[in-house]
């Protein structure tokens, strides 16, 4: 009984992290049609940057926000200088992001060496909280809460603001959005930076649970990919549902079929692809 509860809590935590990671991925994919293969690298880079910031005396939350901002700045540079030159050439964009992910991984290895680094849990969130007579690690609950808050904020941003309306217009019909006077190319930069920030931030707050180590990028990227394929690209609800599905599949898969954890994770995705290629919450495009 207790094992299942622990697994469920871990699944929800991982789902929350994955939501932060994949919401940006999904928006970028939905708007710009780029499967951004550097997204895992952004996650890892954010976490690494935060370890350095914390070592220089910043506190955890400042480091998380600053680390995210640095990653977002890098994302902006990548978008402006490289992806911008390749507009329309989707394949070239995939390959460039792949090449960049190699470069980022190697730079991280050079700067932060190959040893795993654990980010210390913020002092206020150490220990356990008791809910309904069961003890839960406070920090994991906090991550779930952060994910929920971000889900609400992102939903409000997309659904209730002018910027959100423009982004939705860009996702649905970029050509028509341009015609009515929306500067879609500026939206690209904003969305790419936002996505990079979310990924970097997720990397930092995931640090106390996952630690940071070389290869983290290649571990997180496929998970984000599965989330987006399951949920459908450009759909926030899809990312949310997909993240928790993947969180549960991954943790329970590992506990119940340790040898086939990856198969358990990817099979549902294949089924979705075959039965409903646009994803569970994606809309059919012409």
């Amino acid at each position: 009984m207790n094992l299942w509860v622990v697994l469920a809590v871990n699944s929800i935590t991982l789902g929350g992290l994955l939501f932060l990671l994949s919401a940006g991925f999904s928006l970028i994919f939905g708007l710009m049609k780029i499967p951004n293969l550097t997204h895992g690298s952004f996650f890892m880079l954010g976490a690494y940057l935060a370890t350095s910031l914390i070592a220089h005396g910043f506190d955890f939350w400042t480091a998380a926000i600053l680390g995210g901002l640095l990653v977002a700045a890098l994302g902006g540079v990548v978008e402006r200088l490289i992806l911008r030159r390749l507009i329309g050439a989707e394949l070239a964009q995939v390959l460039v992001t792949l090449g960049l992910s190699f470069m980022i991984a190697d730079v991280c290895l050079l700067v932060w060496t190959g040893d795993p680094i654990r980010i210390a849990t913020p002092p206020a969130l150490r220990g356990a909280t008791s809910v309904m007579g069961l003890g839960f690690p406070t920090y994991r609950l906090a991550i779930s809460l952060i994910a929920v808050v971000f889900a609400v904020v992102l939903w409000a941003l997309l659904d209730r603001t002018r910027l959100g309306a423009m982004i939705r217009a860009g996702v649905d019909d970029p050509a028509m959005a341009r015609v009515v006077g929306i500067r879609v190319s500026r939206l690209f930069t904003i969305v790419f930076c936002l996505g990079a920030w979310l990924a970097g931030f997720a990397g930092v707050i995931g640090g106390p649970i996952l630690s940071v180590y070389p290869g983290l990028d290649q571990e997180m990227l496929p998970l984000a990919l599965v989330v987006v394929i399951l949920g459908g690209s450009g759909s926030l609800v899809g990312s949310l549902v997909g993240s928790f599905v993947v969180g549960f599949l991954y943790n329970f898969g590992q506990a119940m079929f340790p040898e086939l954890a990856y198969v358990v994770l990817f099979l549902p995705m294949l089924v979705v692809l075959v039965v409903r290629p646009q994803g569970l919450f994606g809309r059919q495009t012409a």
Partner: protein
Amino acid sequence: MKRLALAAALVLLATVPLWIGGTYYVNIASQILFYAIFALGVNVLAGYAGLVSLGHAGLFGIAAYSGARIMNDGYNQLVVASGALGVTLLISVIFAVLALRGTGLGFVMITVALGQIVWGVAYRWISITNGDNGIAIRGRPSPLGLSLASPAGFYWATLVVFLLAVGSMAVFVASPFGASVRGTRDQPRRMNALGYHVWMIRFISFLFSGFWSGVAGLLYLYYNQFVSPQAVALTASAEALLMVIAGGTATLLGPIAGAALVVIVKNVASAYIERWNFVLGAIFVVIVVFMPEGLVPGTVRRWRRAVAALRPRVTAAG
């Protein structure tokens, strides 16, 4: 002229172990050859059919793994080779049926997922794949009594397979079927309207591509006498694609040049520069941004332009 160049290239290739000096370089040459076979296989889809796969290391690895398993069960070499390629073809059928649900980015994503499943199995299904420790084999086979244990022997055997691969590619490109594959890449709807079975053409291309990827995987196993999950990682698929893109998609020479470039950067440059992964990524980015058609067509274009720019000046002077 063209025949002369071809003959010279053949002689040059056949005599590599004699003039290159040192077994280290012979081994590098062998690696270039089997990676070139892999790149040629990937090129069938990425270049001629317009379907970019990021999961081909899965097929490459399945050939290597099944070859290693069959060999360690004590079967003779013919069973090993045909068994490994048979398994690879079977998996290629499954891959093709699933991946051809999509085209463009959908195809890329599905192949990534398929490749990751193979990786997950290789890494985690320890009772079959021995997990992260990989599987070692006892030695290289000796077909028709010729030993492949020496670097030169292995090089020549790989060269024979490589020439077969190049030959089959040349036939494929020149054949009506090759033309119809390019047709499905450029104008799938019109091809459909003309009565071609677009899906079937892509399916057969996928199997052809999977077959040569499997052959390369088997040679990789013989070369290293070892296979581990590293061979099937996403990075490996990306590298194969880099070879194709770097050299030039939908050309015969491109993937070969690309394979040479990547293998040399990996092996030779890593002796001097520690950060070769960075170099590899940077090459990737630079090529895609500045020479999107690849090194071979890009150089040819620049060369022709330079020649054309020179010519009038020469006649004016004369």
